[in-house]
């Protein structure tokens, strides 16, 4: 399953495609249908309903892969819509959703779930995620109700992908870039940044994979917090390791950081998860 998704993404959305997409953003409908054909959206639907019949653990692996390559599009919303919105499972219908006061890909989607009344476009920080802001009085934090735990977990899986990928990119750069006559990765200051990236990634991985097995609310909240941190800080450190190149548009590093920021805002931000985990201690 994981290899299948990884293979498809390597073929259809490699680093070059990612950089090209950043210049000319837009949803690749053909790729969306290929994802549908590969079962990305129908993964958790029962086979009787035309789905793949797998569970959350497999979905988490697929979303981790999508997160690694920064696959653009409303992936979580469309995955959750499979079986509920006609054509979503097959990748024929692109489904967006109101989430955390924002809507990703509103203009490009065929269907928007939730109340997007009065939504206005933002100048999105992430060139690969067009965003609309929904007026607070129609979605309002608490009024929107608690976040769908599956959406929280799949987003965490994407963040895990980014955490792993940014660690790899930093290590690759640190091994090849030379200054003062040696690879910069031989300097402990750089080495230790990379080591901490791996530590955060592996701790987050344990949390995300465990939450996929138990599907418990506290486990999912933990996965979210640790994966957000691993992704955002990983992308920041990756940028730092890349030095001046990391500050350029040409390098893909900024795209990882910006997407990590976007995902961290999904499903109500970190506060709700922290409060849930605090309440769990005295339950």
């Amino acid at each position, binding site marked *: 399953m994981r290899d299948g998704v990884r293979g498809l993404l390597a073929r259809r959305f490699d680093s070059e495609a990612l950089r090209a997409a950043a210049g000319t953003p837009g949803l690749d409908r053909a790729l969306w249908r290929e994802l549908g054909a590969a079962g990305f959206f129908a993964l958790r639907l029962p086979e009787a309903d035309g789905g793949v019949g797998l569970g959350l653990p497999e979905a988490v692996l697929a979303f981790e892969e999508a997160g690694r390559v920064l696959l653009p599009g409303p992936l979580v919303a469309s995955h959750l819509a499979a079986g509920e919105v006609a054509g979503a499972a097959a990748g024929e219908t692109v489904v967006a959703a109101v989430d955390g006061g924002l809507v990703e890909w509103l203009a490009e989607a065929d269907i928007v779930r939730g109340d997007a009344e009065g939504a206005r476009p933002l100048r999105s920080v992430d060139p690969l995620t067009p965003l609309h802001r929904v007026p607070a009085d129609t979605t309002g934090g608490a009024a929107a109700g608690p976040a769908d735990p599956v959406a929280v977990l799949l987003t965490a899986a994407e963040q895990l992908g980014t955490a792993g990928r940014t660690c790899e990119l930093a290590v690759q750069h640190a091994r090849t870039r030379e200054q003062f006559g040696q690879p910069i990765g031989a300097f402990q200051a750089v*080495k230790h940044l990379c080591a901490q990236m*791996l530590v955060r990634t592996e701790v987050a991985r344990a949390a995300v994979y465990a939450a996929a097995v138990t599907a418990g609310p506290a486990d999912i909240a933990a996965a979210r917090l640790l994966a957000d941190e691993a992704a955002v800080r990983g992308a920041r450190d990756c940028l730092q390791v890349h030095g001046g190149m990391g500050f350029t548009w040409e390098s893909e590093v900024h795209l990882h950081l910006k997407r990590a920021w976007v995902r961290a805002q999904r499903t109500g931000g970190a506060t709700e998860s922290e409060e849930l985990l605090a309440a769990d201690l005295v339950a």
Partner: protein
Amino acid sequence: MDLSYAPEEEEFRARLRQWLAKVLPFLPPKPSPGDWPARRAYDLGWQRMLYDAGYAGLHWPADAGGRGATPTQHLIFLEETEKAGAPYVGANFVGLLHAGPTIAAEGSAGQRTRWLPPILRGEEVWCQGFSEPDAGSDLAALRTRACRDGDDYVVSGSKIWTSHAEVADWCELLVRTDPGAPRHRGITWLAMPMDAPGITVRPLRTLAGSAEFAEVFLDEVRVPVANRVGEENDGWRVTMVTLSFERGTAFVGEVVACRRVLGELARAAQQNGQWDDPVLRRRLGRLNAEFRALWRLTQWNVSEAEAGGGVPGVGGSVFKLGYSHARQELYDTAADVLGPDSLDLGRPWMLERLSSLSYTIAAGTSQIQRNIVAERILGLPKGR
């Protein structure tokens, strides 16, 4: 990630719980922390109880007198004994977790017969003579000299950070036997009887106020050549063979304990009103996330070790970096819960807060661990 346990593992857990419930109420009272002979007697007494019940050397190979338990059974053992409030391994630590396994792996038949059964039966205490004042993180720089004289080595030098030295019967000692060889190739592993003439033990007071360690000074101490495990000058390899012996289980009991403390902190905060502070509450929530993840990572490392896949010695570095930081954060948060009372060492958690400061130093500093992770896992080049 497989989080389920096999039926025989659940049965093992159930039997262990039953036994703990039966014996723990009849334990003698805990000795005072400063009374080393009493601590020795208490720890050995517990080991004897484990031996009689068939739990001694659970994770040791069967041919060394152990039970040959799987890493998962060992994890269950550590989890359940911690949850039940059973005594810690204490004075048996070095014997059960390092010296014993080293002898089991590298010792002669005679050495195994002489030294292993008393460890399992709770009759002899071992301490560790590795670190020296000038050989800490850089252990291979050790300088304690051993010169051959007939059937003995004559050993002079000093060791530091030696736990239980005051009450130990034996010391697993690393000495330099060939100063001319490359550093790692001139080291030898010896079992030194702690009652030999020429040994001076000086307790070392830690910042927590107690003497948990000692310095050990060696002045022409005679150690029989027969007490050498492995070949002369092969001691570095002999020592490293068992470093991954714990197979990911090193901190199982502690992580369980930290999760319990976290719950206690939350309830204490509810009682003293600090719970109304959202910053503190959310900090506790975040710690809950970290310790849940560290527990999963432990289970995972252990099952990887069981499958023969992972190398806990290296994966253990990732875990230790995360855990040592989280433990310090836990006890700093305890201080925030207590407010001004955090300055009172008579309060719960405040001595543990002090001892938690050693976690980023002992058994490889965080800086050394990051080098290990960067070089051995990530493949970054060694620096100059």
